[in-house]
Structures are given as C-alpha cells and as structure tokens.
C-alpha cells in the first residue's frame, strides 16, 4: 500500500490537523516509510501464534458498580474556552 498526497491530505483532515499543501508530499513519504516497516514485519511467519496484547500477564482490571466520582462541574468546565449555565458552549453545530 502506498500513500499519495491526496491520501495524506485525507488522513490529516480526519485528524483535524492542518497541513499546508506544500508539506503534504513529505508527510506522505513519512507514512510510506512507516508502512514499509510494517510490511517488513509482515514477513515474519506467525502462523498459529496467539496475538500478544500485553507483556505482563495481567487480567483486565474491573471496578465495582458504585458512584465514586463526579459532582465537580466547575473543575470539569475550568479548561473550557467558553461555558455557560453549566454547559460547555461550542460553535454552533447543526446536523
């Protein structure tokens, strides 16, 4: 798989990262280098090998169904550029 300029622009748009047009070829090239490395990994024969998801033999940690958090709207909103009446206020989005 090879990433071209248009594909790089699409990925940047999905990630909401602004990339100037003249920076796109270099970005596409970086993607291709990364993908090339992954391709190389694909050469390893992993037939019958369970995928490893963790290097430690841990079980997914569980929590009890108890309310232990929340009730701090001021803190939650404190970094918001705009908040009104307890809500985050964001530029109008209409579907």
């Amino acid at each position, binding site marked *: 798989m090879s990433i071209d300029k248009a594909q790089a622009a*699409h990925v940047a*748009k*999905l990630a*909401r990262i602004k990339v100037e047009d003249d920076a796109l070829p270099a970005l596409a090239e970086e993607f291709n280098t990364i993908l090339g490395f992954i391709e190389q990994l694909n050469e390893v024969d992993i037939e019958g090998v369970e995928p490893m*998801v*963790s290097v430690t033999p*841990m*079980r*997914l*940690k*569980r*929590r*009890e*169904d*108890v*309310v*232990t*958090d*929340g*009730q*701090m*709207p001021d803190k*939650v*909103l404190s970094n918001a550029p*705009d908040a*009104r*009446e*307890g*809500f*985050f*206020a*964001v*530029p*109008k*989005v*209409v*579907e």
Partner: protein
Amino acid sequence: MLDLTYEPPKPKVIPGAKHDWELVIGLEVHAQVASKAKLFSGASTQFGAEPNSNVAFVDAAMPGMLPVINEVCVAQAVRTGLGLKAKINLTSAFDRKNYFYPDLPQGYQISQLYHPLVGEGEVLVDMGPGIARRVRIERIHMEQDAGKSIHDMDPNVTFVDLNRTGVALMEIVSRPDIRGPEEAAAYVGKLRQIMRYLGTCDGNMQNGNLRADVNVSVCRPGDYERYQETGDHSVLGTRCEIKNMNSMRFIQAAIDYEARRQIQILEGGGTVDQETRLYDPDRGETRSMRSKEEAHDYRYFPDPDLLPLEIEQDWVDDIAGALPELPDQKKARFVADYGMTEYDASVLTAEVENAAFFEEVARGRDGKLAANWVINELFGRLKKEDHSIAESPISAAQLGQIIELIQADAISGKIAKEVFEIAYTSGRDPAEIVETEGLKQVTDTGAIEAAVDEVIAANPAQVEKAQANPKLAGWFVGQVMKATGGKANPKAVNEIVQTKLGL
C-alpha cells in the same frame, strides 16, 4: 419447557406504480445498561442531573485518565445476551471508533468492533396470537454513549452536557429478518420487554435509554426468499440507514416514508444511494446526512488502554442460573396453567410487574376469572386514569377477595363491579364493603320466593303473556332483581320464576 407454536407473519407488500414491492429491515438498537456508575468511570448514570455534574475526568477525557471497566455493566450485557439465547464470547476486546464531535471529548468512542462480547442469538417477535417472526440477532457489543448537544438554547452556540458521556450501552444488531414497519416496532418492543424482565435496561425511550438505527431496503416479491436460500445480500436492494429514533411511532413512520421514497426512485429508473438519513418527525420525512459522510472513516483500532475482556464460563453459568422467567415462557405457562387465551396471556405478561400482580390475584383462585378482572376491570380503570400497576389503589390481595366472593356465590358479577368501584376509590377491603353495605347476594330461597310471589301477584297480565310465550319470563327475573337491589342470585331467581309460572 413449554412453547407455543407460531406461523411467521406475511411480509408487508407495498403496491408501486408498476408492480409490488416488499421491505427488508434490520435494526441496530442502542440500549442503555441499567447500572449506577458509567462503563469506565465512577460517575453516576442518574438521568436529569445538573449539567456536567455526573462527569469524572475520565469522561471529560482529561489527559492521563485511564478507563477501568464496570463489572456490573459486563454482567448486564451477558445477561441480555443469555435472554436472547445468544452465544457469550469469553474473550472480547475494545476498539476505538474515531470521529470528532463536540459531545465526544475523547475524539473516539470505546466500542467493540472486532470481538464483541455477545454473538448470535434470536428473538421471537409476536405479531398476534399464533403469529410471530423469529428475528436473528447478529451480535451485541458494549460501548460508551456520547454526551448531549443542545442546539436550541442559544442562536449562536451549541451547549454540551457530558452527563451521558461514557454511560454503558449495549448495541444489539439484528439480521435483516424484519419485513414491515409494524414488525420493526414490535421487535423493538419485544427487546424492551425482555430487557425490562431481565432488569438490564429500563427501556425508557423518552429519555433516550432505548434508541434504534433502522436499515431499510426494498425488493421485488421473491427476492427475499432467494436471499434466504443463498445468503447472498446482493439480490436485495441497496439499503439506507435511518439514525437514532427514540419512538415506536417514528420508527414505523420513518420506514414507511423511506420505503416509498426508495420505490419512487427505483420505479423512475434511478438507483438508491447507500447513505445515512435522519427522520424529521415534524415533516414526516427522512433526509440525507451527506455532510457527515466523510466522517464515516472511523479508523477503528484496538484500544491500547484496555486489555481484552476475559470472563469465565462459571461466571456466565451463574448469571444464566439466576435468569428470571422470560416473557415467552411466562406467556406459555399462563396459557397452560390458567387456561386463558394467548391474547390475554400477552396482555398480562407485557410488563413483568403486571404479570406478578396477576399471579398474586390468581393464587389459589379461579385463574380465568382473575385474568378477566385484572385485564378488564383493573387495567381498564388504571388506563383511564393513566396509572401504572404500581400506583393501583387496590391491592392484589383486595382484588383477590373480590374473586373469592364471586367464586363463593356471595356476590354477583354486577355487584362485584360496584364493590370494585368502592374499593378502588376508598381503599376499603372488599369483604368488609360487602358486609357493611349489605351487598351480600340473597341465596335464601324463601326470600327470593317471596319476592317472586309479589311480582307475580302484582302483574297478572304479564303472567298470562309469559305462560303463552316462555321467553317473556325474563321480564320477571328482571323485576325481581330490581326489587332485591340486584342482590338476589340471578340463577336462583330464574329457576324459581320458571317454577312459579309453571313453565
């Protein structure tokens, strides 16, 4: 186990301008898990709290916050899966579904695309006595809900409340086995009923705790059967997905509209675009959400913050062992044990609380009579005042007393209705009402005979007519009942009238 037998319903046929069409429908139902805390945080799930008060830093996606799964939410999803006779996957995993929206602070939703917790199951959708559609469930996965955007509080900004962010959802995905708008609504109703029996989702559609995305396509009669034989989706039409509906009525109306729209396109020689649409209840139509199409590249990948979810078969078996009796079983048992019709059994088992109330009324008494009284008198009366069974002013024990009084011939059906009315409005015990108000049925033959004699003596002309035409004897029965204030046993009166008139 008891089972009733069913025939599948006929698919809905929509006549087009050129020929007939049929519908093929599949649903994705999002059901909010009944739990105290959220799926990955310790914030409350309580509805209607002050904005942004039920929010932990995990939900607000503050940097460095890590999700820790709520075990009860997992148990609830497993319970739901078992209730839908589904395969439980002992290993499942969480993935990130990436998209940007103001009510999704993480920039991704934690969901389960590749390895869902629950696999294939099925649900029987009742369409009337003896008629039901078996709808296959493809999977159920767990995911986080998003927050709530409010667009109409200010003309220039959108308000965002994260209280719902991170609440656990079960997404229940059906196969395209549903063949009409009514079936689609009934399917959602049946899922809701089962989950309410299980206690895994409260099913409150108004609060958005149960919402559905509906996939609709149309095909020519015979195409669906070809799909069933071959499993080949391409013989079916192109589908459109109508997003996020939270009312049975809207689901039906949206499907109806969407089917007609697609038929019109196809008969005009056009092609249906596969797309996501929104239903506008004010206009009664669906419209395209094309603006969001590019956002549909979700770039799913395994969530690196969460290890796979591994559960043990013993744990699943414990949950399975503690499942309550489910609607289909309860209905079949009511038909078998109480000798009631399937229709009555459906009414009584619609809500688990109603069924429990009925069983308390019927315990040790005439089940059929109890069913009639609960359905016709109690439900009728509750409905008139828009009350639920929990708000019933008459208890199951009190209604049971009325059944006993009728069974013992202490009161007639007519008087029983009066007693019910008094008990309903005053909360007094039926047995006491009958005693105090002197409503006890007169079975004393002497007293009835005296009353009959009186009526006969006063109406010699009627006696002559009745003797010529025995059908007219009923008039005497009516007069005697009237004279005794309805308290005389009608059967006894009838017999005595017959004898006295020499019929």
